[in-house]
């Protein structure tokens, strides 16, 4: 089981402290929500957790049993999505899918594609012909989710996964997150959505910072 440990982490941007002396532990098999008002540092917290950013002081470590995961080994075991993340607009959805999954050493056959696309609510025909640039924002969000599900990553860093989704899409996100947790994935969920907050087992509240 994997664990993310924050030890006395400080992070500031241009002299303004966003995270101050923050310690936290997130465990596999649990949904940990990261909550607080706009600009309080939720997205920053997730980027630090994924080692996409370094803290100014303190330490962020990801452990499996007593082993510390780093570099490529760590990166290959996590998935991250945020509203800033984009797939290649000039490639079709299918080309994007097979590119990003291929980089994780995963090749799906036709049936497996259909299955995972159905889980996120995208029509298989749309995937073959349509370039991602022509997708609606909600469809793009579903596609990000689709790659994350199929990537078999066991750490999910989700920054507002319900953004731009309709009710059915938000229900799908909740369903898949719960299913992920039951498969022992470590799930971090930065959100302002009350239903997503309600699904979490633990919460990290950044509003006091």
């Amino acid at each position, binding site marked *: 089981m994997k664990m993310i440990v924050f030890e006395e982490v400080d992070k500031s941007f241009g002299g303004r402290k966003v995270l101050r002396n923050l310690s936290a532990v997130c465990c596999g098999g649990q949904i940990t929500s990261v909550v607080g008002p706009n600009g309080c540092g939720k997205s920053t917290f997730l980027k630090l957790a994924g080692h996409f*950013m370094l803290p100014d002081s303190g330490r962020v470590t990801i452990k499996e049993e007593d082993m510390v995961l780093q*570099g490529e080994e760590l990166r290959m075991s996590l998935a991250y999505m945020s509203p800033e993340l*984009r797939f290649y607009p000039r490639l079709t959805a299918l080309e994007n899918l097979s590119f*990003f999954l*291929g*980089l*994780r050493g995963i090749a799906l056959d036709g049936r497996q594609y259909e299955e995972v696309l159905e889980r996120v609510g995208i029509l298989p025909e749309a995937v073959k012909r349509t370039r991602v640039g022509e997708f609606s924002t909600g469809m793009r969000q579903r596609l990000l989710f689709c790659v994350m599900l199929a*990537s078999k990553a066991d750490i999910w860093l989700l920054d507002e996964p319900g953004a731009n989704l309709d009710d059915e899409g938000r229900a799908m996100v909740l369903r898949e997150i719960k299913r992920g947790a039951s498969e022992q994935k470590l799930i971090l969920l930065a959100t302002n959505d009350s239903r997503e907050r309600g699904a979490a087992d633990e919460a990290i509240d950044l509003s006091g910072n």
Partner: protein
Amino acid sequence: MKPSTFQGIKLVLRKELMTGLRFRAAWAAMLMFSFTSLVCISFALGGTSAEPKLFAALLWILLFFSSLAGSDRVFSDEEAEGTLMALRVYAPSQAVLFGKMLYEFFVLTVITVLLLPLFIVFLGVETKEILLLLCTVGAGLWGISAAGTLLSALIVGAGVRSGLFSVLMLPVILPVFLPAIRLTEAAFGGTVVSLSFFGGIVLYDMILSVAASILFDYLWYAE
């Protein structure tokens, strides 16, 4: 789970080819630059027969500036489109670095293949040693693509404006540039030079590639 490095490189290279072919602006910029410059040079020289030394220098200046017109985009385009983060999440570092480097090499090769015959015909250059010329150009382009890919990554990583790219590129590539001009001069029938110049370029290319490979891990995984 992880694909072999070779497979990763192949995937990134294929992705670059597909997006590159569907987005022709980068190509157009480089081609326009190299052909316009070539036409200007040939008008300026106006059929006067110049020294092989001058032709050699002109050829490399052309190749260098054509590459500048395109290779600072290697990473900055991805950054601008927001796809760099997706790549950082899913792709292993070495696959990205060498996939992009190979694509850069491919683009420069295509441009050279179009430019070099025209250069030779327009300027009436006599090519005495074709093989030497081709090997020199190949080794030179390798250096330019290695340096260009690494610098582009460093600059995007540091979050500075891309004007810095051209400023840094010249000193980094000079150890390739100078011997390449001497060798090209020899290929155009000038003074014969020692082949150790060629060995020097290849050695520097290898050092650049290895340094890029090591540095890029730090950039990619931010550790």
